[in-house]
């Protein structure tokens, strides 16, 4: 306790310098948390992809449709528990920049496939009873202020209605919540039967299939078996684990993770070197006093601990506040205004931040601390 007081007094000697050092460390850790959230947003889905889910798409590209009749044929493949289809609607709500995914699905099968999307029983029943019914995620509903009972107009960019009309209207019958923080709550889902009978063309075609398998360990084998069924047909397929599919999609954007890691590294390298140097300087400046402490009977180790402790205290205050502010800043909302499906600081980023605080405290403190430890009293006092 008395040592803590000593550390505290040392930091208070040059208040301005301590405050500025803490602030620059704070900034580095704030960016760390913030960029961690952005990275999570871009790679969304990789962590939450079900190990027991596969994606089946057209072999040539995702934009080519598959026949709706494939569902029952996929379900006959040994090891497959269930298969559902999804399609990309790609409509525009109010203006093109209001991007969010809209997909026609089979309600009951879909909700069974994705237990992480939580819908109340009443809302589920309402959806089954309303042909033009749709459900939306909490995130997207809050973004546009939708409430259950609203009529949501969406303009088709691809799927015009019979007669060539672009305007579609859906009745919002439910809002689903995410079971986890990482669940995508930006989806807008409506009924495939309503979609298929209303669209001008493309009847009987769907975008891709999601398949649940009994044993995740056999996913490669089952994927190959599914592709085998449709080999040499007019619609050949490519089947892969949901995780691989989502990862591949994230990789299309580019190596966002690497870019963000590079930025974080640059930030730490610069800001922390600056802060570390300042702390080292602050210790060197007091060589004299450290010698006095030793003369008073502090051991070499005690002085080492004192200097390391001082750096650790500064880094812990700055880093802790930085992570906190980063977390608060992320809570204020997504900078892209809704383009990221999720935006939060994952726990592992916070853990990594705490580890980094410890590493940083050690790296910044160790050199001056060793110097202080080796200090010869007589030499130092003469300086």
């Amino acid at each position, binding site marked *: 306790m008395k040592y803590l007081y000593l550390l505290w007094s040392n930091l208070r000697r040059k208040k301005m310098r301590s405050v500025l050092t803490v602030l620059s460390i704070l900034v*580095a850790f704030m960016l760390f948390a913030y960029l961690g959230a952005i990275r999570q947003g871009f790679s969304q889905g990789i962590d939450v992809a079900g190990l027991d889910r596969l994606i089946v798409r057209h072999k040539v590209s995702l934009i080519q449709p598959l026949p709706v009749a494939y569902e029952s044929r996929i379900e006959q493949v040994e090891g497959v528990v269930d298969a559902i289809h999804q399609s990309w609607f790609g409509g525009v709500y109010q203006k093109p920049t209001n991007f969010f995914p809209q997909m026609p699905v089979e309600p009951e099968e879909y909700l069974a496939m994705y237990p992480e999307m939580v819908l109340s029983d009443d809302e589920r029943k309402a959806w089954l009873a309303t042909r033009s019914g749709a459900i939306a995620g909490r995130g997207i509903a809050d973004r546009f202020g939708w409430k259950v009972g609203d009529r949501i107009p969406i303009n088709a960019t691809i799927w015009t209605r019979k007669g060539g009309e672009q305007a579609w209207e859906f009745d919002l019958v439910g809002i689903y919540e995410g079971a986890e923080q990482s669940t995508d709550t930006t989806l807008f889902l409506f009924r495939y039967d309503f979609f298929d009978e209303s669209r001008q063309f493309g009847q009987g075609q769907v975008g891709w299939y999601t398949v649940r398998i009994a044993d995740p360990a056999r996913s490669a084998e089952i994927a190959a078996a599914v592709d085998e069924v449709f080999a040499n047909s007019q619609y050949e397929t490519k089947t892969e684990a949901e995780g691989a599919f989502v990862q591949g999609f994230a990789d*299309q954007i580019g190596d966002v993770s690497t870019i963000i890691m590079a930025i974080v590294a640059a*930030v730490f390298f*610069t800001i922390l070197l*600056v802060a570390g140097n300042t702390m080292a*300087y602050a210790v060197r400046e007091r060589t004299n006093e450290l010698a006095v402490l030793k003369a008073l009977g502090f051991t070499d180790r005690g002085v080492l601990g004192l200097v390391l402790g001082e750096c650790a205290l500064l880094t812990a205050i700055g880093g802790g506040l930085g992570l906190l502010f980063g977390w608060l800043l992320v809570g204020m909302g997504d900078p892209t205004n809704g383009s990221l499906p999720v935006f939060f600081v994952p726990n592992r980023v916070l853990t990594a931040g705490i580890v980094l605080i410890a590493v940083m405290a050690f790296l910044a403190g160790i050199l001056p601390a060793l110097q202080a430890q080796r200090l010869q009293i007589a030499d130092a006092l003469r300086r």
Partner: protein
Amino acid sequence: MAGPFNWLSQILSISLFNLRTLPQRLGSSGTAVFGIAGVVAVMVSVLSIAEGILRTMQNSASPDNVIVLRSGATSEMMSWVLGDDVRVIAEAPGLARDADGALASPELFVIVTLQKKSTGTDANVPLRGITRTAPLVRDNFELVEGRMFEWGRNEVVIGRGAQLEFAGLEIGSSLSVGKEEWPVVGVFEADGGLAETEIWVDALVLQPAYQRGNSYQAVYAKLESPDAFPAFKDALTSDPRLTVSPMRETEYYAEQSAVLYNLITGLGTLVAVIMGLGAVFGALNTMYTAVSARAREIATLRALGFHSGPVIVSVLTESLLLALVGGSIGAVLAWLAFDGFRAATLNWASFSQVAFAFEVSPALLARGIIFALVIGLVGGLFPAVRAARQPVSEALREQ
């Protein structure tokens, strides 16, 4: 006369005096320079991505070209235009013509999944079905290797960017589309524009391969002059046979890149501003240290009759100089590392890849250095004011 001259000579003498003592403070000045260099390097690198994408889009557009999509479609990918509609569009007024008719090129735009060279993962590579007019409408189309594909045959030519980014695209290799193999016979360039990421094939070959019947997705056309656009647009939108919306290419490509450009610029600026804050704290520390180390000298000068104005200016000069050095180092580092660096990303608007080169433009370098100077100014101002405000008697007594 004596007043201002006196001021200037005071500023000059204190500044020179300060700068001469810089080598003694190499450590702390060095960290400030280093911090600012890091901030500017990150900022310039990230923004050069956005500049590169913007440049690619701008190079794609020609002021006298138009693109016709079905109304409601926000990109080629979502649009469709029937073969009969194409004939109607080609008859519209305002289009440039040659001996064979209007310079209107109906095109198909789909994607084919290929592997990215850098990561080995799947990428949506744009595959464009064209007709004979396509190279006539695009002035910048130029075949640089091999030959053009033969019309009606399963052959393709590939853009320079696609060749660099995606695996398996060389003259002599072939592209697997379903059960067919389409040989690559040539490589083209298009002034660094979007088309360089694409693979081109005869539309009549692509239509059956993607079950498109006699339909296309967009019509690109060349106008007699940019001024002919309103007449052309009126003719199409008032024709009851058509539900299409014509757009100038310049507007179309600006819209296509807007989301990506704004996203990268927004994130880049945000990161730069937060990092800049960190660098300001670093610079403040350095300048406070510098000022407090010289508190007695400064007090002595003021006791000798130097004004506080020149003292402030001299401290600012020092911090601006450090910022200039740091900013320049950072900007040059970013330029060396990233100018011309090639990458490809997914453009959401067209759901397909765009290959581009990072562009560290002179304007961007200037922005980086200006940002560094702002950091230097803020970092120097408070210490400067403190140096000038400190009572002479107290400062002289400081150890």
